[in-house]
């Protein structure tokens, strides 16, 4: 009989003997992977949403009065002194009025009684894509606010800040659920393997006496952990995939979720999560074996 056939038979025996605790471990591993992957999926989607919003980030500098061509050049020079920017657009009061009227559409007539220059002139500053962190945007905004003739600077501060703190919070949740995944997989698998070892003490003793090699005794336990990792993480990821598609279908009508393009993990990320889970489970099984299986 080949080594692997014998070892696989041993694994089958182990699983049959301790199927109750094996099942509990499998569920725990699946649940841990599901929880971690769920938050990680939200986090990655929020990051890509943030990137998308960041692409549209525009700082609007409202001015006291329309700058002449010379002042415009001076302002451009001042703005680019802080950092290079993608684009600087000067919007006159008249242009602002037209744009606003266009936005009102059929209700344009509400502006009939208003003077054409009631909106202040402004500068639209589109920062470079590398200006992503909230602090950098804040610094740039403060710099622009100090430019001569500036009334105020707007870039949707409140929204951007909330979004930033939300993604920060999510990253903490992802870290915590990642820790949960590590702890549960390692400890649960380690505990189950320990139970198997203790339950089969007599057999292991006999195996040593009849000449079983260390690998013959150890590898089934390692495979057990490996199997827990493969099955647990696959079930977890598959459950999340099913849940993701169910939510997408269920909430596909007009609503908040439809504003954003949510996507599932790429195959590489899914495989990485499965791979790491397998590694953790095998590590759990290895550590117990090292501690309790004296050969």
């Amino acid at each position, binding site marked *: *009989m080949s080594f692997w056939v*014998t070892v696989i038979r041993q694994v089958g025996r182990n699983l049959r003997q301790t199927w109750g605790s094996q099942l509990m471990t499998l569920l725990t591993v699946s649940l841990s992977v599901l929880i971690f992957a769920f938050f990680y999926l939200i986090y990655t989607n929020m990051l890509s949403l943030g990137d998308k919003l960041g692409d549209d980030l525009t700082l609007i500098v409202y001015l006291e009065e329309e700058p002449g061509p010379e002042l415009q050049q001076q302002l451009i020079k001042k703005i680019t002194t802080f950092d290079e920017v993608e684009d600087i657009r000067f919007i006159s009061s008249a242009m602002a009025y037209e744009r606003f009227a266009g936005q009102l559409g059929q209700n344009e007539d509400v502006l009939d009684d208003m003077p054409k220059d009631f909106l202040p002139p402004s500068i639209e500053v589109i920062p470079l894509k590398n200006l992503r962190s909230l602090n950098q945007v804040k610094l740039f905004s403060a710099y622009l606010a100090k430019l001569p003739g500036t009334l105020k600077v707007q870039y949707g501060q409140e929204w951007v800040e909330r979004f930033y703190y939300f993604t920060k919070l999510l990253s903490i949740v992802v870290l915590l659920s990642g820790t949960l995944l590590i702890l549960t997989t390692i400890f649960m698998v380690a505990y189950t393997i320990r139970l198997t070892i203790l339950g089969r003490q*007599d057999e292991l003793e006999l195996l040593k*006496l*009849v*000449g*079983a*090699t*260390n690998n013959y005794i150890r590898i089934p336990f390692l495979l057990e952990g490996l199997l827990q990792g493969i099955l647990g993480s696959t079930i977890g990821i598959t459950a999340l995939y099913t849940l993701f598609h169910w939510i997408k279908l269920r909430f596909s009508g007009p609503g908040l979720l439809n504003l954003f393009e949510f996507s599932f993990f790429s195959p590489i990320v899914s495989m990485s999560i499965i791979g790491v889970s397998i590694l953790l489970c095998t590590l759990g099984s290895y550590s117990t074996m090292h501690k309790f299986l004296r050969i």
Partner: protein
Amino acid sequence: MNNNTAEPSETMIEMIKVSKLYPPDVVALKDVSISVAVGEMFFIIGMSGAGKTTLLKLISSMEPPTKGLIEISGNPIHQLKGFKLARLRQKIGVAYQDFKLLADRTTAENIAISMEVSYKKPSIIRKRVKDLLAQLNLTDKHNTITCELSRGEQQRVTLARAIANSPTMILVDEPTGNLDATTTEKVMQLLTKCNKSGATIVIATHDDSIYRHTSHRIMELREGRTHAIVGGNGT
């Protein structure tokens, strides 16, 4: 086994001034020296507590000696580790006094275990198990869980497991303790057959019916010491 394949005239077991002490101060064996040749049948006799089982445990490397040297086929057994030790143990079949059977497994599975560790083909294992069960009058117990067997049957299963892998050395501890006269004879016939096919046999017993008329060497232990070695060429 190592590369020095044993020839018939070579020594299988070499024990020089071997002692075994159990804490706090129990002397199980004291300065025991024996030399058993390849293919020899050797009896160890003595009263309960004389040290017979301890001697077998030391030879089978279940326990290390406190003092002295034990060599099996020229290998100092207590210095061997890992793969080499496992390979050597595959060549030693041991029938333990306390049987060491897996209570939740069938008779066939218990016998097969010693062949599985050396990766024998399933068809060979099945055939060998059947043959052994037939020789020991246990054919009808093939699929019986060993905890449901009588003491005598369990003893025979232990013996079957010890010889199943065709080891070069068979250590048997009280092989007939729970057997009737007819079964004792069958067991001894089986061991003699193994011996004739080249295996070294060491039998620890206090049942004089199995060594009374033997021409093989007999070592008597008393309180852990060698009292006498009789029989064989030296008689």
